[in-house]
């Protein structure tokens, strides 16, 4: 699994816009570093599942997940076939933004369930999986729309 982080501190910035960009890079970099809790996609019920760790540096309300898009070998899994599951509670990803009562703990691993039947014909032993998540911050750090992007493409194994 690639680790997208620098080996040294970011360079000095002296203006707010640069600082915001640097902040996005650092916060998103941390999230992407730990985002995937496994490099495997597994069969689960009538679909498949992958394990995604809360990328933010603290726990947060599930309502901060503005969007989550998964692509497998270039095939975009439809939103209606993407479900996030925390402690057994399954939430269609489109409704995650309404779930402010549901907590996604620091470092907590969620099951992301993919129920798209088309994936059966897409998955191979090794797969290029792209994860695209936007998450709002509950406290403003100066990021545009108080939102942080997490974008990561990794190779994931699938055992048929």
């Amino acid at each position: 699994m690639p680790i997208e982080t620098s080996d040294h501190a970011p360079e000095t910035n002296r203006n707010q816009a640069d600082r915001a960009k640097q902040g996005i890079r650092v916060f998103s970099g941390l999230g992407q570093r730990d985002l995937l809790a496994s490099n495997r996609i597994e069969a689960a019920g009538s679909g498949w599942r992958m394990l995604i760790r809360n990328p933010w540096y603290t726990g947060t309300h599930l309502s901060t997940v503005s969007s989550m898009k998964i692509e497998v070998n270039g095939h975009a899994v439809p939103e209606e076939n993407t479900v996030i599951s925390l402690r057994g509670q399954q939430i269609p990803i489109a409704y995650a933004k309404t779930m402010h009562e549901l907590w996604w703990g620091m470092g907590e691993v969620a099951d992301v369930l993919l129920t798209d039947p088309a994936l059966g014909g897409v998955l191979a032993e090794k797969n290029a999986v792209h994860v695209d998540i936007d998450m709002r911050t509950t406290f403003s750090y100066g990021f545009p729309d108080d939102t942080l992007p997490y974008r990561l493409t990794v190779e994931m194994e699938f055992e048929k």
Partner: protein
Amino acid sequence: MKLGLSLYSFGADVHSGRMDIYDAIRAAAEIGCDGVEIIAEQHIPGWPNPSLDDLTAIRELVASLGMEIFCFSCYFGRNVRSDRPQTPDEMTHHAKRMIAMTSYLGAKIMRPAFNASPVGVLVDYVTSVLPTLEKYGVIWGVELHAPHPPEYYQEALEAVDSPWFRLVPDFSCWQGPNAPGQIHPNELSTFEPLLKYTVHCHAKAHMFDENGDEPNTPYEELLGMLADHGFEGSVAGEYEGWFIKDVPSEKTARTLFALLEKHGR
């Protein structure tokens, strides 16, 4: 002054799931800390509705190891819901919950992260819960953090004028120009007028040189100013380098605490 660590310093291991709050507390005790700072949203199991049993276990573990909880940190965010910001009533309710929880944990200081912009909104917010702070014996420690200038909360501290509303300076305000994110280093003299309000400090660190010093943060001078002032509060080391690089957190925590002891004992 009392020296310890914020459990934030163990973030690399907590974020990746290698360590939980109980591991981090034990590690801090083994390093020799007088106390710890706990961050609600990072460390408390079952957040935001923890069981009293878990809170009791945390409090008792800290005490059994001869430490105290210096400070209970939490976030007072307005963007919890996606359809609207939190209402003033919801914000007040949340603050009162956090004050009571701070008290239950046995901490004397609560550090809420709150966007005080303009700073006048902070005055109204704190004033609305002053009776609760006094009732529970909890101090609202407003955190002064870069890029805010050192005088940012002076007006609010003077306006509220209460022993239940005090300052938690973060050393980031006095870091040098090469510190990550630093945009305006401040003169050390700007710490002087804040000392009378200071109840707890975050000793920020991002990296260490071969001697175990933080190259961008004037630890000797800042801790020296606290000592000269007769500061009897607490200083919690806050290692944040885990944002940049994943290294075992116990090693960096140990280095940071040694730096605190070198200049703060």
